[in-house]
């Protein structure tokens, strides 16, 4: 498995931010990312999204011979697959440590805590029992995968129904959905896994860490709790921690979070049930695919907190000019080392006021092109007077204003092509958009 390589400055940045109480995506320490569960058409399939982490869960069952030590109980098998699809750092085929860790935590959380009534899955004692299998595929690995997987598995198990079975003398008859309704699993309690990242010997505890935060943290703690405040599993990884009450504190916080999550899962299940009962078209997993953003994994833009009054005013000016919404929050502070310089429409730059400019970079020397509009230049003339094009002075302006997402395209009309004479100097056409 290739290691996730994090640069030292990223590490330091995150650590510093955490020690100041800030996170990269602007959440508070105990905020969870947006959780979304969508159920498929089949019983027991769902897609769970926690921020950017995406997990697909599918529950299936078949009939098997029970274990000799427990002849009256059904079997539950949980399998997590972490392939190259989840992240560049995983190689499919070889078992890597992260996969084993997630598998074991989920096994502890669901199987060893006996959250499902296995005895109800027995068909014929010592011969035939239901073997329930939960397959989880991690589609995107972006932190707190264990939590997302546990919610997905829980939702899938709660959603799942196995076919009804009657036993005749010699064999068993498995009824299809049309003959008899499928039977849901009996779930005693609903456990979820909550993960924490601890920094600085436990001074800062972060809930639902992203992949980067997890990697940079000192200690990663996973607590599996159910809604009755019972601990189902605990897993501590990383460097050693000083005191036990850190774990106790995290567990109590985890219990609160677990309650919320379990309530959410129950609500979504209820909704899905209502949809099915009312015979409406079950949306299935199609709704996962039609997302309005162009890229399925697009991140929300970073919320930058600027703290200079001058900057704020400059920004206000710029904002009114271009009518564009910048994700900038204003706060009061005084920092007179920086000032904003406008370098053109909808672009600005932070410039240092200090005399010492070593390491801070000089003012941007790229000049903005005065002629911003390129659409109709090809119709103007054959030969254009080319401006002095040096690297520093040429700025290609990307106008992404308004709704139009189409790039401005230069259309070469046939008349222009014929007029061009090879003896003449080839005009330098300014290409728009793509560069």
């Amino acid at each position, binding site marked *: 498995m290739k290691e996730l390589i994090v640069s030292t400055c990223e590490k330091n940045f995150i650590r510093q931010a955490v020690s100041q109480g800030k996170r990269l995506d602007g959440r508070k320490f105990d905020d969870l990312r947006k959780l979304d569960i969508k159920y498929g058409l089949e019983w027991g399939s769902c897609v769970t999204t926690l921020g950017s982490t995406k997990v697909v869960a599918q529950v299936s069952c078949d009939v098997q011979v029970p274990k000799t030590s427990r002849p009256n109980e059904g079997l539950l098998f949980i399998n997590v697959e972490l392939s190259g699809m989840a992240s560049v750092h995983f190689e499919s085929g070889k078992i890597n*440590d992260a996969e*084993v860790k997630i598998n074991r935590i989920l096994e502890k959380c669901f199987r060893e*805590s006996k959250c499902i009534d296995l005895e109800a899955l027995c068909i014929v004692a010592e011969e035939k029992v239901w073997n329930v299998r939960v397959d989880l595929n991690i589609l995107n690995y972006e932190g707190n995968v264990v939590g997302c997987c546990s919610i997905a598995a829980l939702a899938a198990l709660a959603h799942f129904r196995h076919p009804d079975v009657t036993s005749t003398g010699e064999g068993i008859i498995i009824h299809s959905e049309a003959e008899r309704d499928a039977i849901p699993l009996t779930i005693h309690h609903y456990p979820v896994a909550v993960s924490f990242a601890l920094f600085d010997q436990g001074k800062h505890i972060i809930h639902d860490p992203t992949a980067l935060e997890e990697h940079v943290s000192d200690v990663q703690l996973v607590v599996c709790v159910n809604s009755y405040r019972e601990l189902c599993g605990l897993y*501590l990884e990383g460097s050693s921690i000083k005191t036990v009450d850190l774990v106790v504190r995290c567990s109590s916080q985890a219990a609160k979070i677990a309650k919320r999550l379990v309530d959410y899962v129950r609500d979504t299940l209820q909704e899905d049930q209502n949809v099915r009962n009312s015979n409406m078209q079950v949306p299935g997993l199609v709704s996962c695919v039609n997302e309005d953003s162009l890229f399925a994994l697009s991140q929300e833009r970073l919320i930058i907190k600027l703290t200079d009054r001058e900057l704020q005013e400059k920004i206000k000016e710029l904002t009114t000019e271009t009518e564009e919404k910048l994700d900038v929050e204003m706060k009061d502070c005084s920092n007179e080392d920086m000032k904003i310089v406008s370098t053109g429409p909808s672009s600005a730059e932070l410039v240092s006021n200090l005399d010492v400019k070593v390491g801070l970079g000089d003012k941007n020397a790229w000049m903005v092109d005065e002629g911003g509009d390129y659409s109709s230049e090809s119709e103007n003339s054959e030969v254009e007077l080319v401006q002095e094009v040096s690297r520093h002075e040429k700025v290609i302006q990307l106008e992404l204003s308004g709704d139009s997402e189409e790039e401005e395209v230069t259309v070469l009309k046939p008349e222009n092509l014929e007029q061009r004479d090879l003896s003449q100097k080839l005009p330098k056409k300014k290409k728009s958009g793509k560069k």
Partner: protein
Amino acid sequence: MDLISDQGLRVDGRRAGELRRIRCKLGVYDQPDGSAYLEQGHTKVLAAVYGPHQIRGSRTKALQDSVVINCQYSMATFSTGERKKRPRGDRRSTEMTMLLKQAVSAVIKAELYPRSQIDVFLEVLQADGGNYCACVNAATLALIDAGIPLREYVVACTASLANGKVPLVDISHLEETMGGPNLTVAALPLSGQIAVMEMSQRFHIDHLEEVTQLALQGCRDIYKILDKAVKEHLLETGDFFPQLESN
């Protein structure tokens, strides 16, 4: 079957806070750089340490500023009640290997041996509960036998909750499977730091504190036993520690 009777005795006759009998021996073999054998009740474990030596296999694994620690946990096929088909390679063994590596990494002074590798191999000969703990304890002894500088001993202990109210320490296989929760803690006894903490089955959060404290106390008790064994071993094998005789 009750895990703890009315008189406060457990299935094997111990009290709630009593550890099983621990017997150990350092330097069992000559070929590994360090080896140790540890018995905790009926659980028997052999540990072997090779190193520090050059990185085996791909040189790219070498770390520039610290040692690479390689662990392997393996159970003999005849060690459990029901025969185990494969000694290692299944999920449980891989998880144990990872946890072992975590525990051992917490105490080895990794910065002393850059670009080198230390191998720690564990073989469980008889499993009767507390396999991981016996392995961690044996690994500590083997590391000491190999002469690798450690910050402290790393000692592990299990604890559980009987009948929902009485905490038990150092649980056997029977008590593990009877349905009580098991909490495994690997700690550094002198500084009180916790290197590994792992729990399965379920119990209420309110009990977490007392069960953990009991496990930590168990760790401290085991540490005393191990330390005594190490000093005795030194007395036997080396005669240049005259001051130990007065202890």
